[in-house]
């Protein structure tokens, strides 16, 4: 009697469970799984949104690797951006967190200021930076001129376009700062005190205590921002006049090239093939990060995930 009542209850709960997660499952199938399968199939066709959808084998991939110069250019630009953007924003957010991790009056005011740029996003921010980076009327070159330095032409000079974007990204790296700050505030002050008694300087304390203890967060941050940086698009689209790629295509990033193929040229089969390569690259990056993690990530007593 009791047992059957219990299973009845369990059955009921099971049905309720599926009822509650149903929206996710439905959304997953319609907006994720279905589209990804379509992309996979579409990448072997010459699909262009109209009736045409002929199977063309590996033609799209062949064209990508052997004929499309812009594909390699966009991959190079993206790799350049990721390679510099990820370490620099990570280092800067750690720096911000470290100088905020003190018991001082008014520290929350500084936290607010440091965090504010990270909250702002969208076209307004890009336009602001286009002004700041303006060669003659911009703030950055004006400040440089105070020190008798002639600033570069930033967004107009192919050699400086990517550094310009990275500068903007560093400005907005206060989000990760909060992650680091939360971790730093959990480190026992006794650790620092005993190190200080042993004569360890500021840098040594940072290197030997702080850095090892925040490696799990660095690891998480590096993974997410690598994947995020690889998908840079909006900044380049707005800052290069409707995604034209900037001077000598120096801001033609991978996703921007894909966008132009898909929604400007309507060469959708090719763009879907590019999206499959993107998926592959992101998976590989995640996998490499996961594989390398145990080598340098310090898990305190294995209590971290």
């Amino acid at each position, binding site marked *: 009697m009791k047992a059957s009542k219990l299973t009845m209850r369990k059955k009921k*709960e*099971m049905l309720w*469970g*599926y*009822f*509650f*997660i149903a929206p*996710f499952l439905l959304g997953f199938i319609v*907006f*994720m799984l279905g*589209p*990804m399968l379509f*992309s996979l199939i*579409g990448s072997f066709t010459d699909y262009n*949104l109209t009736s045409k959808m002929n199977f063309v084998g590996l033609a799209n991939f062949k064209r990508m690797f052997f004929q499309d110069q812009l594909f390699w250019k966009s991959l190079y630009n993206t790799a350049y951006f990721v390679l510099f953007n990820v370490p620099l924003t990570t280092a800067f957010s750690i720096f*911000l967190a470290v*100088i905020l991790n*003190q018991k*001082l009056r008014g520290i929350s005011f500084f936290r*607010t*200021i440091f965090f*504010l740029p*990270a*909250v*702002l*996003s*969208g*076209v*307004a921010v890009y*336009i*602001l*930076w286009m*002004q*700041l980076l*303006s060669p003659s*009327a911009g*703030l950055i070159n*004006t400040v440089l*001129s*105070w020190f008798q330095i002639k600033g570069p032409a930033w967004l107009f000079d192919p050699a400086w376009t990517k550094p310009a974007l990275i500068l903007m990204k560093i400005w907005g*790296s*206060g989000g*990760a700062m*909060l*992650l680091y700050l*939360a971790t730093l505030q959990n480190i026992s002050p006794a650790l620092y005190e005993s190190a200080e008694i042993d004569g360890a300087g500021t840098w040594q304390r940072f290197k030997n205590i702080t850095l090892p203890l925040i490696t799990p967060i660095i690891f998480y941050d590096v993974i*997410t*921002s690598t*994947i*995020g940086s690889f*998908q840079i*698009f909006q900044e380049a*689209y*707005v800052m290069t006049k409707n995604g034209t790629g900037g001077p000598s295509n120096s801001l033609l990033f991978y996703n921007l090239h894909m*966008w132009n193929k*898909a929604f400007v040229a309507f060469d959708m089969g090719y*763009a*879907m093939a590019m*999206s499959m390569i993107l*998926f592959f690259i992101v998976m590989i990056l995640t996998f490499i990060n996961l594989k390398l993690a145990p080598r340098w990530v310090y898990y305190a007593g294995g209590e971290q995930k």
Partner: protein
Amino acid sequence: MIQPMDKMSKVRAVPATKKLHSQKKTTRVKKIISYVLLTLVGLVLITPLLWMIFTSVKPMAEIVRFPPTFFPETINFDNYLKAIQSFPFWQYAKNTLFITVLVVLGNVLSNSFIAYGFAKLSFPGKKFLFALVLSTMMIPGFVTMIPQYVLFSKIGWVGTYLPLIVPAFFGNAFNIFLMRQFYLSINDELIEAAEMDGANHLYIWSHLMIPLTKPALITIAINSFNSAWNDFLGPLLYIQDQSKYTLQIGLQVFQNQSTTQWNYLMAGATLVLLPTVLLFFFAQRYFIEGMDLTGGSKG
């Protein structure tokens, strides 16, 4: 007997206070260094925003002068009027608000609903399905974007707000995760007691859980307000009719038309950023909670 003891303690006390004194001195120097560093970094980070506001009230003559002025010599609020008149600002603001409100509603309801299932109910396959939720965080948006566009164009949704709004009602990985964490801190006995009283799970969710999870719901609401208000990619892809543009698209078109009219452009940018900045100052706590896991993931 007492006297030597007293002496002893005094002898000890002297170097102790001396040490304390010098310690105080070094901590004071340290404090000053810290404040100087914090102020310098703070100035560097806030200056772009101050510059935006200053530029927004300057006449063009001050901007093109070399070197340009930092603080505006003449304050010209007309720039704001000019910016608003340069494109249908209020129309676009209304459109953006309409989309944003529905996206916020969709996000709050769906993620709270879905996470209740994952946190409080048990069913076969739950572990696998939750892993599936988390794995969707790894899938780049551009991988699903083209086929999603094809799907929406086949059902006639391109050119409407539906592709921007409807997906919000099906939850997203990060918000499901955030809500689930919050639910896990709520005692199960509460739900069991409600069940004893004959309440079903839909009632428990809508009448008990929603009031109890308010802080998490506000966090989701604020973060989805922020991302919908500043969404550029969605409207760029799906909105074609000019009268349906959002502020982000309007601002970008405005920028293309008046490339170096910096005072108007900065006025427009300030106006578009204003809701986010206000929200941030009044509800910083929720921004921080929403940021805790996303970190640098915003590309």
